């Protein structure tokens, strides 16, 4: 019983981590806090559903297609919305308001295309079990945890060892200096939006079989943001730790309250962290702009 909760909490936590990483990647490189990040998850979930219910029965293929489409949406959000605002001298508050626009319009587009009813993924995806010798755990949870950790490791390697990853870290450190060394910030920030959108797309398809896919699933973005701030906002490692921690808290806490109050746990944690320890549990200092 406890093992099941532990595993499913860990799995949901990994999904939070993926979305939290998306927040952090975009914020660190371009300074944009995309409030609409959760809506990219929705895009991933719904696209994944369509792929698996019409095109193919291969779940992995649906993950890839959803990743590509959500990534494209992320890329377009930068190219059509955030970059033009920043280029014309818009301030953070204008970018923030524009991201609110994404938050309200994307779900409606989702509702128009997919309808307002929650859509269930085929049962065969979520019902398999994995035998671990002594015990059995849910195959879906196992897949989520495995895939999420694989993605996180790939990210670590990418940012640590590749030329592109290093350039992206340089942009995050100092957006002017990176240009002075020939890094085309605009291009790489666009790529980061693509990657970050792709991450949320994967999160959406992974989430679909556990719950369902629907136009209003984007509020998960708020929970993932809670994960990002618990870990220290803007810190990719912190995002992973925060996500897993909150996934577990929600899973165990959820057994104690009735289902309609379950969402209150993470929203409450977000507010509590903001009230009492805004730097997050890792205590990473937020960047201070004194200029």
């Amino acid at each position, binding site marked *: 019983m406890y093992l099941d909760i532990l595993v499913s909490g860990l799995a949901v936590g990994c999904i939070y981590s993926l979305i939290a990483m998306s927040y952090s990647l975009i914020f660190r490189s371009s300074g944009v806090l995309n409030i609409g990040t959760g809506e990219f998850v929705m895009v991933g979930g719904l696209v994944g559903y369509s792929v698996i219910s019409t095109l193919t029965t291969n779940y992995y293929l649906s993950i890839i297609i959803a990743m590509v489409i959500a990534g494209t949406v992320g890329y377009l959000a930068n190219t059509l919305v955030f970059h033009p605002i920043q280029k014309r001298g818009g*301030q953070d508050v204008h970018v923030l308001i524009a991201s609110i626009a*994404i938050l309200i319009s994307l779900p409606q587009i989702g509702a128009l295309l997919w309808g307002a009813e929650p859509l269930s993924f085929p049962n065969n995806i979520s019902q398999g079990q994995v035998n671990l010798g002594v015990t059995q755990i849910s195959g879906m949870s196992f897949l989520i945890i495995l895939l999420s950790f694989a993605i996180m490791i790939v990210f670590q390697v990418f940012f640590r060892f590749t030329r592109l990853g290093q350039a992206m870290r340089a942009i995050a450190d100092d957006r002017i200096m990176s240009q002075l060394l020939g890094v085309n910030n605009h291009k790489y920030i666009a790529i980061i939006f693509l990657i970050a959108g792709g991450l949320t797309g994967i999160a959406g398809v992974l989430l679909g079989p556990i719950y369902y896919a629907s136009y209003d699933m984007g509020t998960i973005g708020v929970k993932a943001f809670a994960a990002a701030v618990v870990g220290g906002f803007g810190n990719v490692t912190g995002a992973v730790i925060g996500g897993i921690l909150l996934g577990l808290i929600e899973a165990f806490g959820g057994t104690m309250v009735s289902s309609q109050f379950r969402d209150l746990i993470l929203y409450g944690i977000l507010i509590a962290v*903001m009230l009492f320890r805004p730097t997050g549990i890792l205590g990473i200092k937020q960047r201070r702009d004194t200029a």
Partner: protein
Amino acid sequence: MMNQSVLKKYGTLIGALGILLVIALFVQSNYMLSLLSQAVIYTILAVSLQLIFGYAGQVSMAHAGFFGIGAYTSAILTYHYDWNFVLAFLMAGVVAAIVSLILSPMAKLGEIYFAMSTLAFNLILTIVFANGGNLTGGWNGLPGIPFPNIFGWVVDSKKEFFILASIVLIVQYLFMIRLTEGRLGRNFRAIRDNQLAASSLGINIGLTKIKGFILGCFWAGLAGSVMVHMYAFVSPEPFSFHESITVILMVVLGGLGSFVGALFGGFGITFLNEVLKEIPLYRPIFYGLFIVVMMIFWPNGLYGLVKKFQKQTKETLIKYTKINLSLKKYLSQSKDTNQTILKMDHVTKQFGGVVALDNVDLEVKQGQVFGLIGPNGAGKTTFINTITGLEKPTIGKVTFLDEDISGKPMYYVGAKGMVRTFQTSKLFNSMTVVENVMVGTSTILKNDIGMAILQNKEYHIEEQKAYSIAMSIVNLVGLEDKAFDLCANLSYGHRRLVEIARALASQPKVLFLDEPAAGLNLKERENLKDLIIRLRNEFGITIFIVEHDLNLLSKICDHMAVLNFGKKIADGLPQAVVNDPEVIQAYLGRRDKKHA
């Protein structure tokens, strides 16, 4: 002139009043009246969010939630507990304000954190409203909320509700204009323009934002009360975060920082909502596109557009006439030149591997002009930052008038009387020169929310005094013919003077000048020198100047210290310091070696 200023101040209000009156007299259709009442209620919401967003600079995504808190408070008190409407109405505002008070520490955070946390809070509220059992009626809501009875006036027709809502809006509008006129209003605008400069003048930014947040939520609560009684029904839908975003849209459309804009935004979006009623699914998409296009091409809303056409460079409205006040009395400091006013013990400041300040001891006496020199990058600005609370010393202690102030926040240090200028002038660009200087008087004045709303005699006396002092200081620094110019249009040299004038208005005990001569021409440098000497001689203000120009400093300083790569290498009378071989060696770099 008084009439003209009354017209300018209350013109919109009088106009709005007229329009509302005409509507009340002539519109008979219940549909129109109902729509208009709704527009008025949403406008109250928009105006209250304008205070939080446009003035206190916080994007609250929970405004509909606070609207809902007021609505449910009023509904529950009248429905379940048979309270009188008037009491329930006031309680609606108070409860919303109390809840916002609990959340208020968040108002100190950056705007993105505040936005996200308030979004979460609105989601929580929706869950609470929808699961409140018999108390809230759950998703089905509570029908049959009694009509208001206001001291015998039973409000039960559409027209009467329209009148009630209009009265609330007009009172609120008056409240907002007055609130943002005095000291608090100046502080709001100062914070919006430049937070760092505002806190250097002793303004507690967090507290100011919290005031805006709580008052805004109070009015949102009142609006909620009016709405539930009008519909005689309450349910969770109108208070979801989607509605919060609609209110944000109203404010953004009207333009941040303009109450007139919020009036237009409130009415405009309500009517647009009605027009788009037939296609509810497309409405959010349309609004989303609309917001994005606006943020790209037109980020300052209607108000910004009007401003652009006006091209106003001078503010002609003068609220007060200048009275003669003794500047000497206002600015003068203690004459006890033996007193140590500022002391640093073993102060070290480290940034990663760079030691910016290395074990610095220093003592400044009352009434001195104290010069700190050193080559660029020697740690002089870090030094000022560390004393004035922008940075915390890694090790060591800063004592100001026998009080340990190390690590205290900047506004605290500023309010104690240590006020600074910045290397690149940080002015409140949307305000005039004299208004900038008036912001400096913030810590001296007492008027706050209460006095600003009442605008009693005491308030006017204080404001007139602030204006007169500011004008005298503007004269003192020689900017009298620029007093009503917007700071955004000033030249570099004038900007630096405004910054000094603004700091002076806060009655500084120690005035810190960070490279005041940088970027000035020779004549301006001479004037600056004269001004500094005058401030010391006439008013006894202690002045701490940081410069790398030894030439300028050695002529005006009583005492000098030399900083090089973070270490103090000399400290004494100017003559002694410039003759110190170590100073010559270090400050002048390789000269000896080169010529050897």
